């Protein structure tokens, strides 16, 4: 592996601060909401950039940024990063206690983790305290913890050690080998630890007006008591002192209940940001974000190119698409004369379908290439975008090691950096990734997905397989919406949906299906629609570039496809595909 691969897609926690600063794109992903004092839930599956967004807004990275840009230290808002996917959060000894004591000990650990985050963050603020303030902070901390601290360290470093000691004490009590008891008496809570700590910090001259943003990452890993406690704090609507920015995988699978039995409400208590973005064409936000993100990574790697130039479309395909467009345009002009709007609409709908329809039956898979294709294949998830790019880059580097290309740029270290990823390599990697995704669905789902039975794995595969068959038929034969590759579910009944939802949940958890909400045809209502991971389509000869349409499929037909492997009914002129409100907004 080349360590300079600009498309490295490791988790944000494994990236150095400098790299986060280099790679993070603020635009087109709502991340500026984080700067507000509102509570924000960042919702999305793995790899959509939640952790990166939180880390970018944490104080150490913002400090780094200020230094780079010769700006003042940003002390109006201090982002405190609190990871939840830790062994401490995964501990389960609380399950051996009654509900009350379980909630007390769970909140204790969570409050300590937040307090540790505050102390660690403040320990990184240079020259924070005057000597008088330092004395006050020392004595207040000692009072809070009822402990004396050796004043050999700076106060917030000592506070970190004190918190760690408290945390270890509670764990030792729970794991005591001489007793089956797992409870620890001297617990803290958010009101008894975090609020006094923040008030103490605000009593210092430099932080008088500071707002603390708690950046809670992977909140889905919190236990039920900790989640309830968190949502109770979120329900507290006075936000001058603190707010929560919470990254969570899927809100629908986690209850939003608070400890008092209520529930937090979107709009009132928090703002929700969906990190998996629905629209992927050039004009859409995700298209812009993808462009900026790849551009930035190329720049940082020392490659002077644009995303479209670096990932060129195969010239053969471009030529074939040009010819397809000519032929389709002639058809449109013959049909609609000088009505340029309808002609454009017709060309948009049928150009790519014409290309796929007129390929010889014996031809290989089309050459899947071009930056736009990669963006569509990502289905709106950043990691899905970076992963094939990473493999392509690595393949080009490997090839150049055995057969150096004259067009590559020689680094001082002797490593060659490519000027582009040739279309044939793009296509090879895309097809290989697509094939391997199908192999995983067919053979491994029940072995690698929590709670996925063999039966549900079989159903999940059969449902996707039959959807691929349906979309293929539509691409080749459908009269009005040939490239539709998302769907809605009609004729939903409780009995069918109870079964079908299990399969859908499996596919969603496996990131093989994304659920989105859009305008329905009826009276401006909203409805859920479903977008299969587009990386599935190249192996089936489909076009990952979708169109602004959703296929309406009856719930019983989807269930029959999943359960009995029955083909989903297809009509070449159905009215089921429904338009999105605006032509260029979708997919």
């Amino acid at each position, binding site marked *: 592996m080349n360590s300079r691969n600009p498309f490295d897609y490791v988790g944000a926690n494994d990236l150095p601060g400098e790299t986060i600063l280099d790679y993070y794109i603020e635009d087109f992903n709502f991340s500026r909401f984080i700067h507000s004092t509102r509570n924000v839930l960042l919702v999305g599956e793995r790899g959509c950039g939640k952790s990166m967004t939180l880390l970018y807004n944490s104080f150490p990275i913002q400090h780094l940024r200020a230094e780079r840009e010769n700006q003042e230290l940003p002390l109006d808002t201090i982002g405190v990063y609190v990871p939840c*996917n830790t062994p401490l959060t995964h501990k389960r000894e609380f399950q051996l206690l009654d509900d009350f004591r379980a909630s007390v000990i769970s909140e204790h650990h969570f409050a300590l983790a937040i307090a*540790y985050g505050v102390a660690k963050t403040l320990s990184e603020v240079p020259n924070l305290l005057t000597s008088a303030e330092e004395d006050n902070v020392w004595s207040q901390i000692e009072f809070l913890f009822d402990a004396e601290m050796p004043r050999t360290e700076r106060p917030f470093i000592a506070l970190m050690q004190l918190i760690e000691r408290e945390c270890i004490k509670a*764990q030792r009590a729970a794991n005591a080998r001489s007793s089956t008891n797992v409870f620890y008496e001297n617990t803290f809570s958010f009101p008894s630890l975090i609020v006094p700590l923040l008030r103490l910090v605000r009593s210092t001259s430099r932080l008088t007006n500071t707002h603390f943003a708690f950046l809670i990452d992977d909140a889905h890993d919190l236990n039920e008591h900790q989640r309830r406690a968190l949502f109770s704090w979120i329900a507290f609507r006075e936000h001058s002192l603190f707010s929560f920015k919470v990254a969570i995988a899927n809100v629908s699978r986690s209850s939003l209940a608070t400890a008092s039995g209520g529930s937090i409400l979107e709009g009132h208590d928090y703002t929700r940001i969906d990190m998996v973005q629905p629209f992927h064409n050039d004009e859409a936000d995700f298209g812009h974000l993808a462009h900026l993100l790849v551009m930035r990574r190329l720049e940082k790697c020392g490659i002077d190119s644009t995303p479209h130039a670096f990932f060129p479309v195969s010239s053969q395909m471009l030529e074939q698409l040009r010819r397809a467009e000519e032929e389709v345009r002639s058809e449109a002009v013959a049909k609609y004369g000088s009505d340029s709007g309808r002609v454009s609409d017709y060309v948009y709908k049928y150009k790519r379908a014409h290309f796929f329809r007129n390929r010889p039956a014996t031809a290989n898979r089309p050459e899947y290439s071009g930056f736009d294709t990669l963006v569509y294949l990502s289905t709106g998830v950043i990691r899905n975008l970076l992963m094939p790019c990473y493999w392509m880059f690595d393949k080009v580097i490997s090839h150049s090691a055995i057969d150096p290309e004259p067009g590559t740029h020689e680094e001082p270290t002797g490593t060659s950096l490519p000027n582009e990823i040739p279309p044939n390599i793009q296509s090879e990697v895309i097809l290989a990734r697509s094939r391997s995704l199908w192999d995983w669905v067919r053979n491994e789902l029940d*072995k*690698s997905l929590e709670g996925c*039975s063999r039966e549900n794995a079989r159903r999940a595969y059969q449902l996707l397989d039959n959807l691929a068959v349906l979309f293929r038929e539509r691409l080749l034969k459908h009269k009005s919406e040939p490239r539709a590759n998302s769907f809605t579910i009609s004729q939903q009944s409780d009995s069918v949906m109870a079964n079908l939802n299990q399969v859908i949940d499996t596919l969603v958890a496996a990131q093989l299906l994304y659920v989105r909400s859009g305008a329905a045809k009826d009276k401006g209502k909203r409805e859920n629609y479903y977008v299969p991971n587009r990386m599935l389509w190249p192996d089936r000869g489909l076009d990952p570039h979708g169109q602004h349409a959703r296929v309406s499929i009856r719930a019983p037909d989807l269930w029959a496809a999943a359960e009995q492997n029955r083909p989903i009914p297809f009509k070449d002129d159905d009215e089921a595909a429904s338009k999105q409100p605006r032509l260029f907004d979708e997919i």
Partner: protein
Amino acid sequence: MRSDADILISVASWEERFLLGCQRLFESHAYSRAIVYYSDEYADWTQASRASVQAQCRDKGIQYEDGVLYAADTSRTWRETLDSSLGQLPEGCNAVVDLSTMPREIIWQTFWFLQYRKCNVSYVYHRPGKYGEWLSRDPDRPRLVYKMSGISRIGARTALLVLAGYDVDRVRHLVDTFEPEIALLGLQKDSVAPENSERMEAQSSAFKDDRSVQRFWVDAYSSDHGMEAVETALASISPTHNVIMASMGPKLSAVSLYRLHRQNENLGLVYLPAREFNREYSSGIGETIYGSLDDS
């Protein structure tokens, strides 16, 4: 094995080695009591073999008792089954734990309770005559083991140590769940299973491009069940990381991880449960391996 051992603790299974193993043990040693646990989810599958062991106990004058392992409620298993049987054993008694068909989580909890009661703990492991193609599917969420979850430091990153079995996806599942900064993947050196080297090669190559995964070799069938190799692999990691350890390879490796946990309370034990098992996983019974926990 000690000759004065008097309590046998086992988990009922549909595998032939459960019944054949009990027969073998009852014929070679005198037991006063047999405690047989069984999973409520697979009670039907184990009913016949449990009845047969119970009959053997009756014939030999061994006190027989059984207890339910609640698959969907591990805290109930701890409280109502393990604590109320093992937690009430007379201090200092001699106990033999049959690891052969016992889930690793129950092995660790059984060891914990026996040492809590200051018992002298021996263990036996019956190898099967033949292995089938696969053991389990449908993984559930990995879980840290009660009382053995380790002592975590708040600011430290996670390191995951996995003694790998034959299933690459299960290892990947653990890595994906805990997102460790470092994963130490222990590969089994030798095995009676002919496909071992091929499967270990598959594990090795599945993670070869992952810079966060370090591989090392271990032999669970050696006298220390690979403990020294694991200790060496952990040496530079454990002072700086929150280490959690999973045994997915040979069952005896669970013993070495337990011992390491007892030596160092910071090291946590994690168990990856499964919801579906292969009824044909093994057949017959092979060699029996004996050992005892040193620090009881």
